[in-house]
């Protein structure tokens, strides 16, 4: 269980993380969702004791990270796959980490086997592809067989095969009863991977709920109606208190489902040409929720030079 209470991080005038409180339940995959620059990486660094919070605290099973004895046995983390010396072999990289937490040397070969890097264990990590680096980082996170795992944007930049591998791997870890906290800026990815969601924007908590609830809440279900007698139907729907919106020749109804509308149309003797349920996309919902909190808006609509794109937080 990871618990953040009033976590705050200020860099000069910028408030990167603003009074953030959430909890990551034990034995589940919890997604940490937010647009680029929302403060996800900073939060994760504070959980791991790498950055000192300006205010508040982050606790892992009730303890500060700094107070954990041999922390790799409790918490495994992959924040950046590039945090490896390019001239050091994958095996040597894992060996020193294992040694620092008094983990047996055979554990190194075990985790290499788990992530499928045994064949290249003696090769320089600098020559690894992003996917291989990512696997090496996961091997390092698994070294101490920890119950809690943190991954920061693990699928960023991976090819589809790599993404699928990571996704399956997360599920496997959760099936083993581990607590997995994984960040992403892609809701569609998180909807497939995570059971719980912590959503932040501009360093502030937007919501914490199960993924299902979040998706149901965030996406608006509507029904599109096409009919030559729209005016009649509009009046009947209006009397029942449905929300109506015109979309070209069609009518978009929210607050009623297809069955209700169909029955109403039959009662009123209205001919229907189309009656189709519409599901809002996850990305749209996410944009809607975090729209105000995206740090670097691009002004593409006014036809002027687009604003400079600023790279993500890592």
């Amino acid at each position, binding site marked *: 269980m990871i618990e953040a209470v009033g976590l705050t991080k200020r860099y000069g005038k910028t408030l990167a993380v603003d009074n953030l409180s959430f909890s990551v339940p034990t034995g589940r995959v919890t997604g940490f969702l937010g647009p680029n620059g929302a403060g996800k990486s900073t939060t994760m660094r504070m959980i791991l004791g790498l950055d000192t919070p300006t205010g508040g605290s982050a606790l892992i099973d009730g303890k500060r990270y700094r107070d954990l004895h041999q922390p790799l046995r409790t918490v495994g983390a992959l924040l950046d796959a590039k945090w490896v010396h390019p001239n050091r072999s994958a095996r040597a990289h894992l060996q020193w980490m294992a040694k620092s937490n008094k983990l047996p040397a055979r554990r190194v070969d075990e985790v290499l086997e788990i992530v499928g890097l045994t064949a290249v264990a003696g090769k320089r990590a600098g020559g690894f592809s992003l996917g291989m680096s990512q696997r090496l980082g996961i091997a*390092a996170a698994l070294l101490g067989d920890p119950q809690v795992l943190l991954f920061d944007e693990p699928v960023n930049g991976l090819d589809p095969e790599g993404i699928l591998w990571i996704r399956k791997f997360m599920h496997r870890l959760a099936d083993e009863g581990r607590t997995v906290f994984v960040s992403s800026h892609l809701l569609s990815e998180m909807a497939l991977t995570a059971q719980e969601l912590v959503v932040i924007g501009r360093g502030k908590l937007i919501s914490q709920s199960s993924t299902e609830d979040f998706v149901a809440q965030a996406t608006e279900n509507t029904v599109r109606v096409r009919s030559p007698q729209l005016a009649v139907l509009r009046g009947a729907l209006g009397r029942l208190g449905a929300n109506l919106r015109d979309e070209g020749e069609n009518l978009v109804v929210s607050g009623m489902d297809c069955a209700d509308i169909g029955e109403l149309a039959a009662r009123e003797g209205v001919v229907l040409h189309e009656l189709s349920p519409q599901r809002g996309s996850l990305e749209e919902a996410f944009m809607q929720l975090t729209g105000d909190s995206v740090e670097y808006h691009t002004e593409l609509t006014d036809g002027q030079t687009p604003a400079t794109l600023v790279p993500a937080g890592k």
Partner: protein
Amino acid sequence: MSLVSAERIKLFSTRSPWACGLLAIALPVAFTALLAAQAGGDLEIDIGATQLTAGLGRSVVLVLAALAVTSEYRFGTIRSTFQAVPNRSAALLAKALVVAGLTGVIGACVGFGCWAMFRLIKPNAGLALDSGQDWRTVAGQALVFALAALLALGVGILVRQTAGAVALLLVYSLLVESLVTLIPKVGQDIQHWLPFFAADRFIGVGRDNGAREVVDLPLTPWGYLLYFAVIALAVLTAGIFSATRRDA
């Protein structure tokens, strides 16, 4: 102990410490051979003369020690280190111990290597080690190299960037300390209290002329070693202290 083993694996699993270590020994020994071959005229031959080129090795060792920590900052492995060992002082002290051990061995190789090379080329010059002072001059390189490395490690932790740390260390040790004497009146007195001058006084070898002994020095050779040690450890402590306070 496990932290020391971890740091040992880290140091020896990349190439640059090996390259630096070999260079730190090969350079001064090779130049000693050149020097010895031409010795006899202007140069007075004594034990001190065998150590004239050791400073080359010491400069390489400064680079080795600074790299041991700046490369960790460069490649982000310092974060993995602090993640594995949240007690940053312990992690960095373990690194200091490993670096000091390695550079001490390098220093001994340089001291005895240069002396042996000189003696090989000038077998009749009476270069036997038969006084405590002779032993201090040759074996003392181990202590000087190790302490210089700790100082460089401290600078590396403070500066964090390889280019910055290495430039600072080399420019200071090779240029600034000698140029200080250009300051009128007080220059000489200031120089007597500078760290690498102190190290050289302990060895008993002059910066530019092995034969010239300065008479009115404020400290004895062992006093100078202690002084150098205090400065090196102070810089290292400052580095470790700042690393525990900073965000990694």
